[in-house]
C-alpha cells in the first residue's frame, strides 16, 4: 500500500462555546477525489482550514506524505502544495483577475525589488482561465466587475496556478451553474490523472456521486462513516449525515400548481444600468416560479430591481393587480415583497451581530412599545423562529457570523417569515445548505406557496430547479429566453434556452 498523500488523525478543534471537531480522522490517497459531506455545522470547513494551515488543531496530527506537518499559516500550506479554496470568496476585488491569480506568488524580476513580470503573468493567467472555461479578456478586468460565479472560477484558477498536490475545495459549486460545474469536473479529472489529490465539499449530493472516488461523512464534528465509490448513493449519504432516512425530498403537498391569480407582475421592466431588453413576467399565487440562467444572465439584478435596490428605468410593477411603486427596499418590504439575497454575508445578514438581532431587524416596527422595544415579544419571536427553522445555535445571542453557512441561511429565512411575506424572491435559496435543512426549506417554501405566497425562485441548481418549480422562466443575457412548464420542463430544454438556443 502506498503512503497516503494526506492523513488527519484524531483532530479536535474547539471554539468558544462550540466543539467544532472532536477526534476526526481522514486519509487521502494520491490522485484520489474524496468528498466530505455532512450537515451544516458538522465541521467540514473547520477540518479543511486545519488541513490548510488556517487554524491549528487543538489536538491530533496532520501528516503529508507520511511526515507530520504543522503549518503556521496558509502560505506555508500552499508552499507545501496544500491549497484551500475557501467557502467564502477571498479575492482582492480592487485588483485585476491576473493580479489575483498571482497574489502572494507573483512572477518577479530584480531581486528584492520584486518588479512584476506582467507580460509573463498575463500569458499564464490566460492559460489558467482557459482551464476553468473563462475567456482571456477577463485577465485585465477588475474582479469587482465580475458576477459571483466567475469570481468563484477565478478562485479555482488561482489554485490551479500553484504547485498543488492536495486541492481542497469548500463548496466550489454553490454559485456555479450546471455548465460551469461540468467544466469543473473536467478540471478535477485532469488533476486526478496527474496524481493531484482532491478534497471536495458539497451539499449537492448528485455532484458528489458524479465525481467522488470515496465519501467521508461528518456529523456533529465526528466521523460518521465512509462510503466507497460503489456504495455512494443519495440515500446512503443522507442516512449517514442525518442519522435517518429522508423521504419526500421535493415536496409538493400544499401547492395548487400553476394557474393561480397573478400576485406580482413585471410589465416591460428595465432598470438603470441594466440591459436594454425589457422583461415581463408574472408570479402567481400558489406556485413556485423557477428562474434559470447561466452565471451573469442578469437574474440577480432583475430581482434587485424589483426589490428596490436598483432603480427602475422603465416599465411597471403590480402587486395583486394594483400598481406597486418601489423606490427602495423599504417600499418593497412594506408591500410584503421580500428578498432572500444571493450573497448572504454581504446583503443578507449583519454577521457581526447576533442571531436575534438579525431576526428582529426587519420586524422592529412591529415590536415597538411605548418604552422602546417590546422585549418579551422580541424574545418570543426569536424563540419561535429558531425553533421552527431548527437553527443550530447555542442561543439567540450567538453571533450570526459564527454559525455554519446553512444555519446562517436559515436565519435569513427566519427574518422574513416572521414578517409574513406576500411575495418571496429567493436568490439561490439553498446555497450552502445541507440536505436536511434543504428538505426543511423546501417544505417551508411549499407550505408558503400553498398559503398563497408567490414564490420566485432563482437557482443555479438544476436538481432544485426541476424538483421544486411549477413553472420555469429562463434568462439569457438579460432577457427572457423562454418559459417551460409541465412536460416541456426538462434539463435539456432549460440548458438550450439558457445558452441562447430555441425552445424545443
Amino acid at each position, binding site marked *: 500500500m502506498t503512503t497516503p498523500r494526506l492523513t488527519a488523525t484524531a483532530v479536535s478543534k474547539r471554539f*468558544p*462555546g462550540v466543539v467544532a471537531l472532536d477526534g476526526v480522522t481522514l486519509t487521502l490517497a494520491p490522485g484520489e477525489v474524496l468528498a466530505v459531506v455532512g450537515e451544516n455545522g458538522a465541521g467540514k470547513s473547520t477540518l479543511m482550514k486545519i488541513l490548510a494551515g488556517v487554524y491549528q488543531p487543538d489536538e491530533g496530527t496532520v501528516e503529508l506524505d507520511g511526515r507530520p506537518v504543522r503549518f503556521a499559516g496558509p502560505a506555508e500550506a500552499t508552499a507545501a502544495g496544500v491549497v484551500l479554496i475557501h467557502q467564502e470568496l477571498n479575492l482582492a476585488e480592487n485588483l485585476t483577475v491576473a493580479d489575483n491569480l498571482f497574489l502572494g506568488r507573483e512572477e518577479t524580476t530584480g531581486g528584492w525589488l520584486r518588479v512584476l513580470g506582467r507580460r509573463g503573468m498575463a500569458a499564464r493567467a490566460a492559460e489558467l482561465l482557459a482551464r476553468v472555461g473563462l475567456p482571456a479578456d477577463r485577465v485585465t478586468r477588475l474582479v469587482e466587475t465580475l458576477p459571483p460565479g466567475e469570481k468563484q472560477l477565478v478562485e479555482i484558477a488561482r489554485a490551479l496556478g500553484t504547485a498543488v498536490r492536495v486541492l481542497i475545495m469548500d463548496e466550489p459549486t454553490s454559485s456555479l451553474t450546471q455548465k460551469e460545474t461540468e467544466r469543473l469536473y473536467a478540471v478535477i479529472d485532469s488533476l486526478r490523472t496527474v496524481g493531484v489529490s482532491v478534497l471536495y465539499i458539497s451539499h449537492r449530493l448528485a455532484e458528489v456521486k458524479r465525481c467522488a472516488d470515496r465519501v467521508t461523512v461528518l456529523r456533529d464534528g465526528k466521523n460518521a462513516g465512509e462510503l466507497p465509490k460503489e456504495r455512494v448513493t443519495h440515500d446512503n449519504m443522507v442516512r449517514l449525515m442525518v442519522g435517518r432516512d429522508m423521504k419526500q425530498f421535493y415536496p409538493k403537498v400544499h401547492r395548487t400548481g400553476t394557474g393561480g391569480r397573478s400576485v406580482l407582475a413585471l410589465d416591460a421592466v428595465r432598470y438603470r444600468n441594466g440591459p436594454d431588453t425589457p422583461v415581463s413576467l408574472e408570479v402567481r399565487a400558489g406556485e413556485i416560479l423557477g428562474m434559470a440562467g447561466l452565471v451573469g444572465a442578469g437574474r440577480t439584478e432583475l430581482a434587485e430591481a424589483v*426589490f428596490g*435596490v436598483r432603480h427602475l428605468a422603465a416599465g411597471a410593477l403590480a402587486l395583486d393587480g394594483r400598481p406597486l411603486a418601489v423606490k*427602495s*427596499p*423599504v417600499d*418593497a*418590504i*412594506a408591500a410584503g415583497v421580500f*428578498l432572500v*439575497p444571493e450573497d448572504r454575508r*454581504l*446583503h*443578507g*445578514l*449583519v*454577521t*457581526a*451581530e447576533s442571531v436575534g*438581532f*438579525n431576526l*428582529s*431587524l*426587519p420586524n*422592529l*416596527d412591529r*415590536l*415597538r412599545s411605548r*418604552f*422602546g*422595544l417590546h422585549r418579551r415579544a422580541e424574545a418570543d419571536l426569536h424563540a419561535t423562529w429558531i425553533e421552527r427553522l431548527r437553527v443550530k445555535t447555542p442561543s439567540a445571542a450567538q453571533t450570526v457570523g459564527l454559525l455554519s453557512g446553512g444555519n446562517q441561511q436559515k436565519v435569513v429565512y427566519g*427574518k422574513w417569515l416572521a414578517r409574513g411575506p406576500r411575495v418571496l424572491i429567493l436568490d439561490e435559496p439553498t446555497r450552502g445548505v445541507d440536505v436536511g435543512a434543504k428538505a426543511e426549506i423546501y417544505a417551508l417554501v411549499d407550505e408558503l406557496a400553498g398559503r398563497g405566497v408567490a414564490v420566485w425562485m432563482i437557482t443555479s441548481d438544476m436538481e432544485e430547479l426541476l424538483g421544486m418549480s411549477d413553472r420555469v422562466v429562463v434568462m439569457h443575457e438579460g432577457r427572457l429566453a423562454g418559459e417551460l412548464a409541465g412536460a416541456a420542463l426538462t434539463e435539456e430544454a432549460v440548458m438550450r434556452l439558457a445558452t441562447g438556443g430555441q425552445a424545443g
Partner: protein
Amino acid sequence: MMRILGVLGLLVALYGGLVGTYVQNAPGFEPTSRTQERIQGNLIDVASIQGRYGVITLGAAMVIITGGIDLSIGAVVGCAAVLFGVLTQNGVHPFAALPLVVLAGAGVGFGNGLLITRLKLQPFLVTLCGMFVYRGAARLLAGSVSRTATVEAQPEFAASLQMIRYVLIGKDASGELLFPAQFVLLLVLAAVIGFFLHRTAYGRYWYAIGHNELAAKYAGVSVDRQRVWVYVVCSALAALAGVLLFLDMPSIQADSGGQYLELYAILGAVLGGCSLRGGEGTAVGMVLGAMVLPVLENLVNIRGLKSDLIPAVIGLTLLAGTILDEFIRRRSRARH
C-alpha cells in the same frame, strides 16, 4: 461589558492619582476636612468639564457607531459659541438664542449628512472641509465674544443669562461653581441617547448600518435617513456644547474656540468602547470615555508638571489605557 473594564481601570487609576496628589501635598497644619473640601471642589471643577466633553462625545460616538466620523465638531462648538454671543449681543433674548443656536447646529449636521448620503462623499472629507467652513463662519461673525460683552451691550439680558448659566453650568451670579450642572446634563443626555441606542429600533438600525450598511438596506432600513439623523444629532450636541462653552468660559476667541475638540470627542468615544469600524459602543462607555481626558489634564495641572512634559505624559497615559483595554478584552475573549 468587557469594553468598559479598560476605561474603568484607567479612570480609577487617574482619580486615585488625583486624590493621592492632594493628600500628599496637603500642608501639615491643614485639617483633613479642609483637604477633603479642596478635593471636592476640584472634582466638581473636573466634572463640569467632563460634562461638556461628554456632550460632544455622545454625538461623536453616535456618528462612529454608524461607521462615520465627524471632524467638524470642534469648529461647530466654536462657531455656536460665537453665534450665541453675537445673537445675544445684538438683542436676541438668550432664551430664544439657545434653541436657535442648537437648531443652527442641527442644520449644519443636516448639511453634512446630505453631502455624505446624497452625494456619497466620504465623511472624513466632508467634515474636514466643514471644519474650515464653520471655523471661517465663526471668524466672520466676530473676533471674540464673552458674557461680559453681551451684558454690556444688553444689560436687560443679565438676569436671563445668569439663569441659563445657573441651570446649565451650575454657577451662581458671582461665577462660583456650585454644582457640576454640565455633568448632570451629560447624564440626562446619555440616558436619552442610551435609551435610543439600546431600547429602540433606531439604535438597532444604527448598529446595523455601522456593521454592514448593505445588509441594513436589504433589511428595509432607510439607511440614508438614519445616517442624516445621526449627523444632525451630533452637530446639534456640538452646538449645545458651544453654548455651554460660552456660558462657562470667560471669553471665546473665534479663531480658536473649541479647537481640537473633535479629536477629544473621538478619543472619548473610542476609549469608551466605540470602534471606528462602526457598529460598536454603549452609552455608559461613552460617558466613561469622555471622563478620561479632563481628569488626566487636571492631574497634570495639579502635579505642576513642566509644560514641556505634558503632551508626552498625556499621550503615553492614553496609549497605556488603550493597551490595557485591549489586553482585558483579549483575556475575556480567551476565557469565554
